[in-house]
């Protein structure tokens, strides 16, 4: 049991190090959400005066989007890292060892989840320095961290699945485009009551909307009720679906 735990922990440790190396590559993961935050909160500040807009400032409204984007960014390269392991043969090196093969995937997913939680913590400090005020207290913040952990693992699951199915770095690089519909067709720009038509329907169908609203509900409004519970439910369902797909594709590749 001790040996098994040691194996899982060293794989987790390696997965985490892989996700933050080279260190310079982590910088854009913060620059992009900060860029979105600074530009959008300045460009759309008059939106806050629209009837039906429930926040005093657009900066407050947009801060959770920056946090969400940081989760996307910090977990988005998992597939590419895995394809690198496959193409360099390092995955084979791990397969040659007497280790439960599920540890290899699960430790990586957990490492990415933890990395996203740390990114979210750092982003929160940035946003605070930029003038965002947070509500919801310690409990609310811990809830958001758990939500980030689940969603980051779910998002990483998409990349992992693509990595195992295609084993192709170019496809993984192109899969970055998924980020746009998932992050933009949400309530990131405007609250749901100000949206209309097909766009509103698309926003309601996007699972990320519910995760964003849960973060917004806790951190900006200080509420931990229905919206947060719904956010957790959607995050768990989303993660279950993508992780099942990634584990299935891993099994399919390994057992060839």
């Amino acid at each position, binding site marked *: 049991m001790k040996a098994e735990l040691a194996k899982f922990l060293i794989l987790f440790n*390696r997965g985490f190090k892989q996700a933050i190396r080279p260190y310079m590559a982590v910088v854009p993961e913060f620059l992009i959400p900060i860029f979105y935050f600074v530009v959008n909160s300045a460009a759309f500040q008059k939106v806050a005066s629209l009837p039906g807009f429930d926040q005093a400032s657009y900066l407050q409204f947009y801060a959770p989007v920056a946090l969400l984007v940081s989760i996307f960014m910090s977990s988005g390269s998992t597939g590419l890292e895995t394809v690198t392991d496959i193409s*360099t*043969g390092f*995955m084979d090196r791990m397969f*040659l*060892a007497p280790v439960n093969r599920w540890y290899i995937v699960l430790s990586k997913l957990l490492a990415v989840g933890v990395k996203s939680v740390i990114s979210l913590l750092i982003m929160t400090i940035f946003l605070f320095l930029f003038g965002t005020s947070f509500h919801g207290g310690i409990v609310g913040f811990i809830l958001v961290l758990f939500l980030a952990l689940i969603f980051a693992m779910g998002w990483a699951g998409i990349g992992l699945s693509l990595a195992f199915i295609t*084993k192709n770095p170019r496809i993984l690089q192109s899969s970055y485009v998924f980020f746009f519909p998932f992050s933009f067709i949400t309530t990131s720009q405007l609250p749901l009551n100000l949206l209309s038509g097909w766009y509103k329907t698309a926003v309601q169908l996007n699972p990320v909307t519910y995760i964003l609203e849960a973060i917004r509900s806790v951190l900006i409004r200080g509420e931990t009720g229905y919206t947060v519970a719904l956010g957790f439910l959607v995050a768990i369902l989303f993660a279950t679906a993508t992780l099942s797909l990634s584990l299935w594709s891993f099994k399919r590749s390994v057992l060839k």
Partner: protein
Amino acid sequence: MLYSVHMLKENQAIVVENLSKVYPKNVRAVSDVSFSVKEGEFFGFLGPNGAGKTTTMRMLSTLLKPSSGKVSINGYEIGKQDDWIRCSIGFAMQGVTLDLTASGWENMMLIGTLYELSKKEIEENGKKLLKLLDLEKVASVWVKNYSGGMKKKMDLVIALLHSPKILFLDEPTEGLDPVSRRRVWDYLKELNKKGTTIFLTTHYMQEADYLCDRVAIIDRGQIVKMGDPQELKKEINGSLDDVFIKYTGHSIGEENINKNAPDPYINI
């Protein structure tokens, strides 16, 4: 003439019976191969590119599931006792199979822990191997900054870290300078003398001639000749190169091209 071997299971490190690998679209990479390797033997597996050497080696090391046939490694049966097999073998693959954004030591710590070695064992074995292969000074540097030869040697360190009973080597000295190659040869000889069974594929006939007690020549997925290199050379009164050309019909650099055959290294 295709080779068939009557296998004596006692003192056999590797026993292969009618091993085949058929890829999708009915591509037969390895076809009904049978041979055995004695404990402590230095065995060479030679063949042109695409002959089935790497596929065979990957099946023997549990990385690839055979389509049919039976394999026993150190007395453990493939497909049933894979973890025991993994504990008892080392494999230095054709490419470099290291974590490039980690140091040599980090690679050793990771792989050593997966083999359930203690930190002390990893450090002791690691230091010895690093010294031997002249990698002590770079052990704390990220592997991506190593030269090709250094990466290859570090790969060998990783394969040997847990002191395996059988060592599989797929082109271990490819890309090494003559001095490093000679040093690796001497080390392998010494390792073999101490009792490690070595299964080697190589493109260098000189290497096979110098190191191997016995060689098998594989062509188009089938073993076409097997024996002691000295006897094989005597048989045709030529070099091992000549033996190779005689039994495969082409020189070592030529390839058997099958467009449908997947690259065995991009097949986890």
